[in-house]
Each structure stands twice: as structure tokens, then as C-alpha cells.
């Protein structure tokens, strides 16, 4: 077990270097001088331009720039934006916001999705099952920005139940964006749970369990559900990773100052240090989440062992 984890973490090292280099090179390839972009149509004196270019190593070739960047990271320095803010501070500010949003979406999609999936799976072909099929299809077919605007107009402007922008009102600000963000995954979770449960409810061991006269709650809860949850947990784990790296569209619509919005603005401003910093942190989160999911398998299915 320990060796397995160590091996997985070692694998993260080449992934880290590869991913950071690719992202770095892509930002480097954006045409135009970022200092000039920052200054808009204003003229900038040669000496100031030179100063800024030196400060951000903009005149170095790609590999040298990348080398300096990685050297900084090794020393705990994620660099600064062109406006002089340390990238580490930006990440400290933005990740908690995105984390809260991700958690909200995760809880919403997990609880509602599982509940709907179980309900439909246990009563296959029933009205509930068909309702679920149709409604989830419907949600999955609507692009997230339409869903976001719809939620804002209905629940925010029309009925004024929820605030629709920013995080000025504490946890209630996160309700609407969390629901919108979680809605697509909710569809997958519900359908995954349902299919998996239907499959397992027809398997031999369930029939045996029922024949032994076990109470239905135990048959479903202990035997059917536990096995059915393996694909769902995989999905949830990966999804939590995705959510925590930021939701560009949802954060944009609801004006949530999280990682997604930050990365969008950073790409546009050619803020290489911010883009690479956030993406690197995102990759790390992803690697850890995947490892966590794999370990969780062993808990759900005792037959799985890691060496």
C-alpha cells in the first residue's frame, strides 16, 4: 500500500514538468508584447519598457524563462503578475472561493444525483424512472450558460430569492452557482447510479441475499448499493478534481472571484506566471484526487488490493 502511494506520487513528477512546460510554452506563444497589452494605447517610455522586460525576463528565450520560473517554484516563489502581485497570494485568495463553490456543487450533485438514481434504479420502468430519464436528458441538453442565465432571471430577478452575483452575502451567494455548476454532473451521477443499481439488482448474489430472507434495506444498502457505487465514486472523485480547478463559465456568469475567472483573465492578459501557477496547482489537485479515488476502491470492494 505505502509503496503503491509512493509510486503514484513519483509518477506525478514527470506529469508536473510536462504540464507546466506545455502551458508555459503556450502562453509564451501568444502573439504581442504583454507589457504593451497592459498599457493599451498609452505610450510607454523606452526605459520603463526595458525595466519591465528585465523584471519579467521577457527577453530571454523560452527555455531560459521556463528554467527561471521552475527555479523560483522550487524556492517557493510562484512569481509576480505584471502588476506586481505575488501569484501565490492570488492563489491563496482564489482557491478557497473556488473550493467553496466546488464543495457546494459536489454536495448538491452527490446528494440529489444519488437519491434520484437510487429511486429510479429500484423501481425500473416506473413513472419516477421515466421522469428522471426525461428531466436529466433535458438538463444535459442545455448549455451551462443558458442554465445560469435562466436561474438568474427566474430566481434572482423575477422572484428575488437568491443573490445572483458575487460572494457578498455569505454562503447564500454560493447556492445558485453551485446548483448550476453541479447540474450537469448530477445528470451523470443519477444515470450512472441507476444503471449500475439496475444491473446489480438482477445479479445472482442479490437473489441469494433475498432468498436468505434478509430485509430489503440490508439487501439494497449493504449488497446492491455498495457494489453499484464503484463507478459513481470514480466519477465523483474525478469530478471534484475538475470542480476545484475552477469553472470558467459559471464563475463568469455569477461573478465569483475564483480560479476559473482568474485563469480566463490571466490568459487574456498573457500573465504567464498566473496561468502556469494555477494550472500547476490544478494538476496537483487532480493527481491527488485520482489517487484518493483509487484508494477508495479498496474500501468499497475488498477484492481490490494494491501492491
Amino acid at each position, binding site marked *: 500500500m505505502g509503496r503503491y502511494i509512493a509510486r503514484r506520487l513519483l509518477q506525478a513528477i514527470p506529469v508536473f514538468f510536462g504540464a507546466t512546460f506545455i502551458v508555459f510554452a503556450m502562453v509564451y506563444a501568444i*502573439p*504581442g*508584447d*504583454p507589457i*504593451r*497589452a*497592459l*498599457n*493599451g*494605447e*498609452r*505610450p*510607454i*517610455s*523606452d*526605459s*520603463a519598457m526595458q*525595466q*519591465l522586460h528585465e523584471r519579467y525576463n521577457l527577453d530571454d528565450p523560452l527555455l531560459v524563462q521556463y528554467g527561471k520560473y521552475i527555479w523560483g517554484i522550487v524556492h517557493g516563489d510562484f512569481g509576480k503578475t505584471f*502588476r*506586481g*502581485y505575488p501569484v501565490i497570494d*492570488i492563489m491563496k*485568495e*482564489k482557491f478557497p472561493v473556488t473550493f467553496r463553490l466546488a464543495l457546494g456543487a459536489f454536495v448538491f450533485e452527490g446528494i440529489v444525483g444519488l437519491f434520484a438514481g437510487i429511486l429510479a434504479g429500484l423501481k425500473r420502468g416506473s413513472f419516477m424512472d421515466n421522469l428522471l430519464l426525461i428531466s436529466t436528458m433535458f438538463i444535459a441538453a442545455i448549455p451551462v450558460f443558458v442554465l445560469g442565465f435562466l436561474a*438568474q*432571471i427566474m430566481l*434572482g*430577478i423575477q422572484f*428575488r430569492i437568491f*443573490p*445572483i*452575483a*458575487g*460572494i*457578498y452575502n455569505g454562503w447564500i451567494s454560493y447556492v445558485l452557482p453551485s446548483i448550476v455548476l453541479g447540474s450537469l454532473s448530477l445528470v451523470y451521477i443519477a444515470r450512472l447510479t441507476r444503471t449500475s443499481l439496475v444491473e446489480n439488482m438482477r445479479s445472482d448474489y442479490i437473489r441469494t441475499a433475498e432468498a436468505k430472507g434478509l430485509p430489503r434495506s440490508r439487501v439494497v444498502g449493504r449488497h446492491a448499493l455498495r457494489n453499484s457505487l464503484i463507478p459513481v465514486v470514480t466519477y465523483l472523485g474525478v469530478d471534484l478534481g475538475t470542480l476545484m480547478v475552477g469553472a470558467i463559465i459559471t464563475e*463568469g*456568469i*455569477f*461573478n465569483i*472571484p475564483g480560479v476559473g*475567472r*482568474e485563469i*480566463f*483573465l490571466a490568459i*487574456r492578459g498573457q500573465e504567464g506566471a498566473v496561468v502556469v501557477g494555477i494550472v500547476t496547482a490544478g494538476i496537483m489537485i487532480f493527481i491527488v484526487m485520482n489517487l484518493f479515488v483509487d484508494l477508495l476502491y479498496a474500501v468499497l470492494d475488498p477484492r481490490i488490493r494494491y501492491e
Partner: protein
Amino acid sequence: MRRRLRAPALLGLILALALVAAACGGDDEDGGAATTAPVATTGGEFSMSICEPESLIPQINAETCGSQVLKGLFTPLIQFDPETDELIYAVAESITSDDQTTWTVTLRDGWTFHDGTPVTAQSFVDAWNWGAFGPNGAGNNYFFGPYGVNIVGYDALNPSEGKPDAKELSGLTVVDDRTFTVELGAPFSEFPITVGYNAFYPLPPSFFEDSDAFNEAPVGNGPYMIDGSWQHDQQISVVRYEDYAGTPGNADAITFRIYADLDTAYRDTQAGGLDIADVPSEQIESGRAEFGDRFIESPSSSFSYIGFPLWAEPFDNPDIRKAMSMAIDRQAVITAIFFDTLTPADDMASPVVQGYREGACGEACTYDPEAAKELFDSAGGIDGELTIWFNNDGGHEQWIEAVANQWAQNLDIEFRFESMPFAKYLGLLDEGLDNELGDTDGVNGPFRLGWVMDYPSMQNYLENLHGTQAGSNYTTYSNPEFDDLIAQGKRATDLDQAVSLYQQADDLVIQDLPIIPLWFGLNQSVTSENVSNVIIDKFSFVDIARVEVVGGGA
């Protein structure tokens, strides 16, 4: 002083509109503003939308979002009444000169920064020196140099190679606590009206100890002081400064909420979460009906135009330029694409400045497809394809296409587009300036640009865009007669005389038409029922100190 664009409109962020200061809180404070008469204020709180400022250091900030906040935090030497456009002396008691070159600035007594330290001549001189010092990389650096007011000693602080030897502008001299002199490189009669801009705000001693900390919680001398610190991407809160020497603000507290997207802010106003927001162009029609008298529209200083590369054939022929201008139906484009949110341009300077003449551009700016075609053909027309240049990150595609189609239809020409992000676009235009002779690698066709004024003067529109070698003269237009008239205007002691000289210069530009004037901008804002007396000035800023809170609260 060049610039101006509505840059990447993707998330509605408005970047890099460097604007000059305008009134905030200044009523009639003619007399000794030191004694703050107890003025009834309405109290209450309100919120308004801004985008994330690039900086809250006035010498660095050159975009509208930060400037709006800084207007509350600082009071400059002079301001403009947002309604009458009258010059109001704020911190300055007087700004005088005998020769328009050496100016003496006298300050009023009794002004203090929010930390209690007095506002002295040194506060201004130190701030200007810091802004002009090249290595500080201040965004408004150029305001002190030849493209700006041109203070003596600027070059020593901004050498083209290596590190500067001097740290202070030799043209600035502190006479006593309340007086300093400014020596300019050339006569400039409008110097007093330029010093309302951010770049000329004073800075307290604490700034020079820790400018990073200052940026997070600026200490100014304005009607409002910061409450806590700048919460990036979220909000900036300010409260009324009770020891303010000018007319105090009405509201007790203001929250500037930071939105990355114009649409979201607008929807938040609809939902009652926000008090003042700008209106995204596609919402203007419905907004007018929905908000009724809470929909506010006022002229802005923005001016859009299409420039010609005068070094490239056939654009060196003024008849071709005139014909192309006459072939554009400005009103049709404005109605179809901008929902009537702009007005057709009929002069080279915006209606918000003194000296603007309605219809000055005459037939050159009047849609007349037949005459245009005739003139175009007799001038020899255009061989082959016309290449039209624009930046593709500012929402310009639609109208450029409309204008191109009108050219195609009315002048019977074929066209293609070259578009790129703004930074690259501007770089190419700069190259155009360097390669005036027969260069076809760079920009070789009509290109779009815009302008927002730095201070309310015709000269600001004319000299920067058309003066020989001027900062934003991308057409390479050069007319000694024009330069001479502008220089005379700048030397003139009398404003009316200056304006009449500028108008003569304006006529020369209209005659030569190095650019096609397209349209002038309007500001559109909406407010909640919580606020009233929301006045938007010519610089597109809300006069926050005058806003009255009616009640309720958003």
C-alpha cells in the same frame, strides 16, 4: 497622450481608457475651503459596479475602473463641474503664469490627507517626480513628458538607454508649503485644465515608505477614505472623510463592487443587488423601457475614427479619402449595430469640448453615395483589393463589416480584413510610423482607432491625432500650418482666442481628412430606486459625492 480603446470586450472588461479627472464633490468652493461649513448630507450607503482596477496608485492607474475609485479617494488641484463643465479650483487656489511656460501653483490652506498629514506643495512635487521617474514604470509617466504637459527635466528621468541619473524633475520647484512652480518645455496655455487628471494627484509621505501597502489601502485627500483594504476581484469600500476640506459627499459609505462582466452587473441591478451599473449595448433598448427615468444617458468624450496610412497609395490622395468618408452611412450603422447609442461624428473633436462646431465636417461627413462614387472614380479609385485593419478583441467586427459593405456597394470595390489582438495591432501601427516610405508589410489600408480625451480641450483631440510626430498620430499626417496654429493656440493667453486658432487647425484637418470621423459616444447607466442625483460627467465617471441615497438600500 494617446490611447483609448474598448479593449477585449469578451468579459466586458474595459481596459486602458486613461481619462482625466473631473469633478467629484466640488460644488462652489470659491472662498476659503478650509472652513467646512456644515452641509446637510443625505447619508445612507450605495453600491456601484466597476471592473478590477489595475492599480490604486494614481500615477500608475490609467483605466476607468480604478480612476472612478480614485476620484472618491483624492481631490486634485482642479476639477470640472459635471453639469456646466466649468473649471473649479479645488486644492489649488490659483494656477497662474505670465508666459504660459512657467506656472505658479498656489494651494489652499487646510487640506489634509486621510491620515491627518497636511497636503503641501511637497505632496504634489514628490508625487509628480515619482510618476515621471522612468524606472517606476508608472502608467501615467508620459503625462509629464513631451506627449503630455512636458515638464522640464523629463528626459533626464527617462533616458532611452541605461539608468537615469536624476530622480527629480528639474522643472519643479517648491517655493513654500503652499506654493510650487512648474517649468514647461514649451508654452501651454491650457496647463491648468490638465492637472485634474490622476497623474497629478498628491501623495502623502506614507506612500514613499511602502508603495505596495499604499496600493492596497490608499491614503488620499478626497471626500471618501478607504474602509479596510482593497478586496481584489470583490469590492472596495469607502466611507466619508469627516475632515474633508471641500464639499462633503452625500452618502455615508460607498461600495465599489468589482464585476468581470458588464452583463452580470446589469442583471444584478435588475435583481436589486446593485445601485449603479453601466448598460451593455445589447440591453440598451430594453433597459430604456424597463428602467424609465432611472436609465441615464449623457454624452461621453469618446470618438471613433478610421485612419488612413498616408504613406501608402492611393490613400495619399485626399479625394480618395473624402470619397470613402462620404460613402459611409453613419446613422444606418449606428441604428443597426449600436441601437442608436452613438451620434454620427461631424467634427474632429467631440461635442463635449469647447470649440466643437456642429456640422463642421460638412459634406465630407455626409452620406452621399452618388457623389462619393463620382469623386472616387475621378480620383482613380483603388487597384485590387482594399485591406481593412482592425483589432479583433474589442467588439469591432460587426460595424467594420457594415462599413466595408457600404464601401463595396457604394464604391464598387472588393475588400478583405486583417485583424489581430490589440497589442499586436498597435505594434504594427507603430511600425507604420517607422516605415513611411512605400512599406507594404505593415498596415497598408484603412484602420480603426478611437480616442477619449485626457482633459476637455479641442487641442487634446487635434494635436495628439494629427500633430507632426505626435504620440497617437498613426496616419503620419504632417501639416506645418496645422502645427503652427496649434502651437499658437497653446501660447494664447485668452481661451476664446485659443479656441478660434484650434478651429482653424480643425478646418485644415477636415480639408485634408487624414482620418474619417465616425461617431461620438454616449454613456448609458441604470440605477436602482435606492439612489438619485446620479450625474455622469464627460469623462464617463459618476460624480459619487453628489449621489443621494433615497432610502431602502440594495
